[in-house]
């Protein structure tokens, strides 16, 4: 008589569909129940209303929350401000990451490349709050930035939108450097040599050959910098002063008016999904 383990193994070996079902059912059940289910609950609750007097949820199907989000100028301003901050962060990170990644991949000696890469990526492990906190200390009144800028008659920008842009750019910079570094490293030398042989000066080669080839990498990096900034709400709370972003509006409504919070949270989700769909054609998603 064959032992049960071997019989089960044999049964599985003969039926690939059964093996697949055994492998995929648990992870899918988890994600469908814990995650998709939760998203559906959230979406459905956006169509309910919070009773103004009792703060209880009225389970009456209506689209009032979405109408509020679309028509109230408060939400439009917050959404535009959030978009502006996310775009500024993406631009700043791209400008800083470009020369750094280029230097790491094409100018530095091969031996120091790996070391530089580790140096750039190590801060990712230091923690989100730790870094936001570090900037909070630096930007605060009488802090390092005041001390540095004082001889020039300047001072810390204080807590507000500029501080939010600085700190978010700092937080997400490695996510922009990494795909750019990989793209610069994979640039075929032959193409650059050919461009030079055909008489192009370095700058011409850079604009005509290098830039088009690394464009997907910039877009891949921008997916991180853009969507991470769009959904952020803690950095704003720490260094933003009274600035509000979409995340704050959602967070402040969760306990008191969940239906409204659910409706507002559709805004960043739609923007991110739209952005992903728009850049899918460029092949950037394969670079993630």
């Amino acid at each position: 008589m064959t032992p049960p383990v071997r019989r089960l193994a044999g049964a599985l070996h003969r039926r690939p569909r059964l093996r697949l079902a055994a492998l995929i059912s648990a992870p899918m059940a988890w994600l469908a129940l814990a995650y998709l289910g939760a998203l559906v609950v959230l979406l459905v609750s956006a169509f309910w209303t919070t009773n103004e007097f009792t703060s209880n949820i009225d389970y009456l199907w209506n689209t009032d929350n979405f109408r509020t989000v679309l028509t109230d100028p408060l939400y439009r301003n917050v959404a535009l401000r959030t978009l502006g901050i996310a775009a500024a962060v993406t631009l700043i990170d791209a400008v800083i990451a470009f020369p750094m990644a280029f230097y790491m991949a094409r100018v530095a000696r091969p031996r120091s490349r790996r070391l530089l890469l580790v140096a750039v990526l190590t801060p990712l492990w230091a923690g989100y709050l730790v870094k936001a906190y570090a900037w909070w200390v630096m930007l605060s009144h009488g802090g390092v930035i005041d001390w540095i800028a004082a001889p020039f008659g300047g001072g810390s920008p204080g807590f507000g939108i500029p501080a939010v842009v600085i700190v978010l750019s700092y937080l997400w910079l490695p996510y922009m450097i990494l795909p750019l570094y990989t793209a610069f490293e994979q640039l075929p030398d032959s193409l650059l040599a050919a461009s030079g042989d055909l008489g192009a000066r370095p700058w011409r080669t850079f604009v005509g050959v290098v830039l088009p080839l690394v464009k997907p990498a910039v877009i891949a990096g921008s997916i991180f910098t853009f969507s991470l900034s769009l959904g952020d709400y803690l950095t704003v709370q720490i260094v933003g002063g009274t600035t509000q972003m979409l995340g704050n509006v959602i967070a402040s409504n969760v306990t008191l008016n969940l239906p409204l919070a659910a409706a507002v949270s559709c805004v960043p989700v739609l923007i991110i999904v739209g952005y992903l769909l728009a850049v899918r054609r460029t092949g950037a998603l394969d670079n993630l």
Partner: protein
Amino acid sequence: MELSRGARVALRLAMALGLAVIYVPLALVLVNSFNASRSFAWPPSGLSTRWWTAAWQETGLREALYTSLKAGLGATAIAVVLGTMAAFAVTRYRFFGRQAVSFLLILPLALPGIVTGIALNAAFRTVLTPLGIGFGLFTVVVGHATFCIVVVFNNVAARLRRLAPTAEEASADLGAHTFQTFWYVTLPAVRSALFAGALLAFALSFDEIVVTTFTAGPGTQTLPLWIFDNLARPDQGPIVDVVAALLIVLSIVPVYLAQRLSGEVLR
């Protein structure tokens, strides 16, 4: 592409400046943790280790660290099992809806943390609370595991795609059954990828605060929640700085482990 001398110097300068911008804030946190005064006025008036001693004696801090470790280990354990299963399914089989599975896996990480957070919050309130299960460590582990699955999946799937099936076929030809082949042949081949994924999952969970905020009950405080809570209290500033400094120093550990793991891959 031959760069001019000036361009090279300019690029080197940009690199040095970039690294300075990355590391100066972290270095300042380290220096400030030895700052004798309570405020963070710069330059420090004197140096002392008294805040490190004070942090050591803070019981709430130790409990938060303990909670974070438990949540991280729980979420990582679930993520390792489910992520590995999904990786095998997606790389070894062709089936209807395979793309959708990959998409569903990455969704919890792609959508803003706050959306995931309030979705889980709303779902737990509607489903778990009537069952008598309150918000606590359990809900935090469920929330963290959901977005940790994808990092284990990515690491293991990448390794499986590069793994030729010949070794497994040889094992089966020599009479090993499915489980023996998995245990003696496949698992050793994906082990380092599995560890790398687990390391990443744990780090992600250990650092997470947004989803945690909306899934933790009032009695559950992870380390990031403790930091955020105490950030607002002026008298706790120096102790928060000590914790931040400690986390910066400790971030070398996963980097070292990751380097060891990638060394194993190259060998």
